[in-house]
């Protein structure tokens, strides 16, 4: 991967953002009748202005990068990249299942998996740590701060 690939990626990101702004102004906001008129009714003018500024700045930034002709290689070992992707995947999976299975069923496996990705292999110790962490924090937040953690379809809520 080079810095140019990343530049392309971030440019695409901003292009999508700016695109969404204009798309929404012309569809949703237009239908709601809030895309024109004075300051009382026109909700589109300000986001449109900001989006145009972003587009302008991004173009300037790209031109500067092209003019400088600067390009560097980003050295990231495959192992490290794998760990990062693994972490994000596990965390996304965790958040995705949270609503469905509830906090108590999902947190211990998530912690365990993250430790495993980190390279820990002492299964017993990891399991214990995972349980202590997930239930310990649940206890503190539910008991003392009255937070009701997601119970999932099984409605698993511990009345501490």
């Amino acid at each position, binding site marked *: 991967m080079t810095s140019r690939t990343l530049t392309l990626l971030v440019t695409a990101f901003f292009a999508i953002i700016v695109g969404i702004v204009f798309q929404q102004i012309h569809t949703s906001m237009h239908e709601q009748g809030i895309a024109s008129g*004075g300051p009382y009714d026109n909700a589109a003018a300000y986001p449109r202005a900001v989006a145009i500024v972003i587009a302008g700045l991004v173009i300037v930034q790209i031109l500067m990068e092209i003019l400088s002709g600067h390009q560097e290689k980003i050295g990231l070992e495959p192992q490290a990249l794998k760990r990062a992707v693994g972490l994000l995947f596990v965390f996304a999976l965790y958040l995705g299942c949270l609503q469905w299975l509830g906090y108590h069923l999902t947190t211990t496996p998530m912690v365990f998996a993250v430790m495993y990705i980190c390279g820990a292999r002492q299964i*017993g110790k990891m399991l*214990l740590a995972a349980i202590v962490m997930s239930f310990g924090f649940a206890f503190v937040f539910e008991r003392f701060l009255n937070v009701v953690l997601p119970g999932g379809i099984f*409605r698993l809520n511990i*009345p501490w």
Partner: protein
Amino acid sequence: MKLLRSMRTVVAAAAIVTLSAGASVAEFPERTIELIHPWGPGNAMSVSQLIAKAMGEELGVDMPVISTPGAAGTKGQKTAMSRPADGYTVFDGYVAPLVLQPILGNADWTYSDFKPLHSAVSNAFAIGGRVDETRWSNFEEMMEYGKEHPGELRYSSGSRNNLPHMVIAKVLQSYGVVAQNIPYTQDGNAVKDLKSGVLDFSFINVGNYIQDKPAFNIMLVLSELPGAKASYDGAPSIADLDIDLGLSGLAPMGWTWWIVHEDTPDDVTEKLRTAMEAAMERPDVREAIAKVGFVPLEWDHTQYDEVVGPVLDQLSAMGNALKWEEEELKKLR
């Protein structure tokens, strides 16, 4: 060895979880109940926290208040509706999301889609100006000024298309006065700009009024109830006007009626009703509510339809006031 020990912990934890899951069928409530409040942090939220605390004490569990502001209260209502109907979620059913937004076409429910627990509080509004105002000294004079200067007056009802806006627009329409509403995020800021002369008049709630009585000229209390008039030290109310606005009871006021999901089991609903009724009867609770400038209400769930029904009818009947104001403002531009 280590593994064995940790396995035992897992089993123990699993046992606790299953036990508690089994127990939930037997006894309600066995855990924290959440109240979904449709506004951001402020006085209304504090009042809800106050009642929730007392109600939680009656039930023997904690009742935290979750603030979910957005889209004139509809975000909170939708959030609460998406929760399971198990009695662990109570809605703070403010008039705006419950009755007004459906009338304005922004929501597809009606008040009768929910089971009422008990009425909570109401909050009267008034139209107020500055005491050092030279152009007029009372409401009628201000209306005369407004008629001579169409589109000149600047006022705030808090936010656009909220209940005070609807009522004020109705009053202005009755006098044929076109004025510009300026929305504010926090109602304290509208009062501040009224005091510093940026606005010509503003909606003032009892809380704003008691903070600095000498600063306001309360020109019109937007309620015909004697209690509301008394909160503003006898200022003129809509009952004293020559015209009939067609508003009575709770219709021109802010209020909340705590409700639960329609499918909530009857025994659970009954427990919640009993607890809320007991909480609302407590003198310490009533006193604390009154201190914030809200009025504790006494209607129980059996009176839900007869109290909320007329509000719906009256507000529906005046729905065109907001449209009228918008169109008149456009004509002036």
